[in-house]
């Protein structure tokens, strides 16, 4: 659903040629009033827009609107029931992501130079727009005056920028400076303007009272620190950028981006209460055992001259892995056995000289350590006391479900796409059936199936939380679409590439891993970005399942609070704007990145 296809289908649209700079009068004439029809259209659209804006602003700022419902409940919206005493964990997680963001911005050389002339133009248009908006909005007189002054400030800024531009055409401002400046001024307002002045008090009998700026005042310090963290990380990145090998740094950073959400969720936010006994006497020996034995096996299996014996051993290990389901055994052992089987099956593909073999073994070791640690952490109960069933809710749940959907569906999608394009008819048949089936039914039916029916398919005594069932449903659904995007990429790899790889003697798996996939994945980046944004939007369907996502909080939880009954429209508007901001900025950013790395051109 949604826009999965749009970015795949639409050819990259060339930017219209830069118009020569026209004086305002001529510009108006050319673009708005070139002939009678044009003039009519201009007038009509202006009227429509102004009345629409009037309606929307009248709705948004009408006196009956309870915007307090949003302000007071901002905690519910963001982290739902996460205990306030443990907020440092959330701030720490946020700071970690910001450090990564800052480093990435520096190392990928993010940001562009914005000429002052352009800045002036946008300041002018924002100023004029704001002025009109304020004029249309039903604000109190003092409010109108305040906002008009703000609009005037913008116009003044535009004027100053224009003067600077007039002095020197080349003068420009880094977009990052602009970003930090904007963030800084927003955060600065936290120190002076008491947003969300109201809060609930009373443990049993909820009551809204006026307090001195709870939301703003409790978060102003952390937000300020966050800003400094971001800027500091950026400068650290600049320092590191020149001292480290670029490609390796980038791939390490990519790895951090992938692993840090899981690390933050399971270790920082959940704070598992590891029982030392269990960890010391069960988990660590298990992991160590698999690490040592597995590494040795893999080192042996990557020997180039091994031949078919390797495959047979791999099959035996895999068989043992699947067979272990017939006897009671720790799940972790089964997982590790199957993983070892898969690694051994792939071993001939990556066989080579001693250093290559050592590297392969060490990748296994890394895998087993990460996987063992994760499984242990996931299995350990949390120490953070959450008032409620769900650890996360609101925006956090939305983001986490989207993240896991992406993480699970991408590898699955790649496998499906490979199966669908392989020359093995049964693989093709299975993959095609799955993909076409999933693409043929609506997401909501799949989600309902997974939330209602999946428990029936599980062995007795095993119970999945609903979030997990639904996330699996999301991932399977999304995988079918990912597979189609990747298939597009796979098909764009020419026949000649296959032949060249075969001609130098590569096996099918080597050809796929070294030649075909890297090219195909690169080709499918633009549609995949679109798909990722689509996934984020689709998480709103959690509402229908009855999970406390952003939409559920806004649509059902808050409008039922005794103090804010009937505040549905405010909350819906807020949720819409939030979604809009996230997905709009994501798509803009990805477009910029695509343009920069020259993707999308074939």
């Amino acid at each position: 659903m949604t826009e999965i296809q749009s970015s795949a289908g639409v050819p990259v649209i060339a930017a219209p040629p830069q118009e020569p700079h026209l004086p305002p009068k001529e510009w108006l004439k050319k673009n708005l009033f070139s002939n009678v029809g044009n003039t009519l259209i201009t007038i009509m659209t202006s009227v429509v827009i102004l009345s629409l804006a009037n309606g929307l602003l009248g709705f948004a700022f009408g006196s009956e609107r309870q915007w307090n419902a949003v302000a007071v409940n901002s905690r519910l919206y963001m982290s739902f029931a996460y205990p306030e005493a443990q907020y440092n964990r959330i701030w720490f997680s946020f700071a970690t992501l910001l450090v990564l963001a800052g480093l990435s911005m520096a190392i990928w050389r993010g940001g562009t130079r914005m000429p002052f002339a352009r800045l002036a133009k946008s300041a002018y248009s924002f100023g004029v727009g704001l002025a009109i908006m304020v004029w249309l909005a039903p604000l109190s007189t003092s409010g109108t005056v305040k906002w008009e002054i703000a609009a005037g400030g913008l116009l003044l800024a535009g004027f100053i920028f224009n003067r600077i531009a007039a002095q020197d055409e080349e003068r420009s401002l880094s977009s990052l400076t602009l970003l930090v400046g904007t963030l800084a001024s927003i955060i600065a307002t936290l120190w002076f303007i008491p947003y969300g002045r109201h809060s609930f008090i009373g443990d049993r009998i909820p009551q809204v009272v006026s307090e001195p700026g709870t939301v703003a005042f409790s978060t102003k310090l952390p937000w300020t620190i966050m800003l400094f963290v971001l800027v500091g990380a950026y400068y650290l990145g600049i320092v590191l950028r020149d001292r480290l090998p670029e490609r390796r740094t980038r791939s390490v950073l990519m790895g951090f981006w992938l692993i840090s959400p899981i690390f933050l969720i399971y270790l920082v936010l959940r704070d598992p209460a590891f029982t030392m006994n269990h960890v010391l006497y069960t988990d660590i020996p298990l992991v160590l055992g698999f690490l040592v034995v597995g590494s040795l096996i893999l080192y042996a299996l990557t020997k180039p001259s091994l031949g078919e014996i390797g495959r047979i051993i791999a099959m035996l290990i895999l068989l043992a892995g699947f067979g272990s389901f017939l006897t009671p055994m720790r799940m972790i052992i089964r997982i590790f056995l199957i993983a070892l089987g898969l690694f051994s099956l792939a071993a001939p593909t990556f066989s080579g000289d001693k250093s290559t073999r050592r590297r392969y073994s060490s990748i296994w070791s890394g895998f087993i350590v990460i996987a063992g640690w994760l499984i242990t952490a996931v299995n350990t109960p949390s120490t953070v006391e959450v008032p409620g069933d769900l650890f996360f809710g609101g925006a956090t749940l939305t983001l986490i479900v989207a993240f896991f959907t992406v993480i699970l569906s991408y590898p699955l999608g790649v496998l499906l796409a490979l199966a669908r394009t392989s020359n093995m008819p049964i693989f093709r048949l299975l993959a095609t059936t799955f993909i076409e089936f999933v693409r043929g039914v609506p997401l909501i039916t799949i989600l309902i199936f997974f939330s209602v029916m999946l428990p029936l398919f599980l062995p007795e005594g095993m119970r999945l939380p609903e979030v997990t069932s639904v996330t699996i449903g999301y991932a399977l659904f999304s995988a079918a679409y990912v597979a189609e995007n990747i298939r597009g990429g796979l098909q764009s790899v020419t026949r000649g590439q296959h032949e060249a790889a075969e001609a130098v003697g590569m096996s099918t798996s080597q050809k796929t891993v070294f030649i075909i996939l890297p090219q195909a994945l690169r080709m499918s980046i633009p549609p995949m970005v679109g798909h990722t944004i689509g996934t984020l939007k689709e998480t709103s369907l959690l509402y229908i399942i009855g999970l406390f996502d952003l939409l559920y909080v806004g649509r059902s939880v808050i409008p039922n609070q005794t103090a804010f009954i009937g505040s549905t429209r405010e909350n819906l508007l807020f949720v819409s704007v939030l979604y809009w901001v996230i997905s709009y900025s994501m798509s803009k950013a990805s477009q910029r990145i695509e343009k920069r790395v020259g993707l999308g051109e074939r």
Partner: protein
Amino acid sequence: MNETDNTITTTRSGRDLSDAPDIIVCKGVSKWYGDFQALEKISATIKEQEVVVVLGPSGSGKSTWIRCINRLEHHQEGDIIVDGVELTNDMRNIEKIRSEVGMVFQQFNLFPHLSVRDNVTLAPIWVRKKPKAEAIEQANELLELVGIPEQADKFPGQLSGGQQQRVAIARALAMEPRIMLFDEPTSALDPEMIKEVLDVMKDLARSGMTMMVVTHEMGFAKEVADRIIFMEEGQIVEVGTPEHFFTNPTEDRTKLFLSQIL
């Protein structure tokens, strides 16, 4: 003519290859694409160190034949034996032959996502299982050999056609093949770049590499070939030394072809 084993004893360059061992033996090789018979009972033997140029009008099955030799295409009847290994469904044999037979394509088919050096070292590292350092050293030598050592860190998209084709030759040579197959290596090149590729191929021929070349470059055929095989409609029409072929062809179809092309 078609059915005979086309072996020669002496070559134009005076090399006597009659004692040389057979390296490629084709016996009654046939191939169909649906209704269309692309190869019809091809039989030929190629000796070690021999340079064979395959000529013929387009659609005559030349490319299909040499692609059958390293099993990019599967023949359906007859036998192909390369360096003593029969081409069958045996995985080990296919692997062995692929790494013994290098191939250069009309469209270069370089790997666009890898640098020139990685293009050349990829197969030696992962297929020949060479240590990385050794593979890089060898790649540098080979790039030197084909005359573009300075382009090693560039990507294929940044090179000219001639340079790309030379990288492709280096990539094939990196596998240390005993046989090189060339599938119209100069057809996609601008005229001014053809020479640089042909020069590399000539050097290679002089160094004693067994080569099978499908080309339209008559000059190259005259100068380098030990033997010329002329094909039409999936059959071998005529086989002979360059002198014989260009000056005194026996078959009418050959004459017609030469009159059109020269």
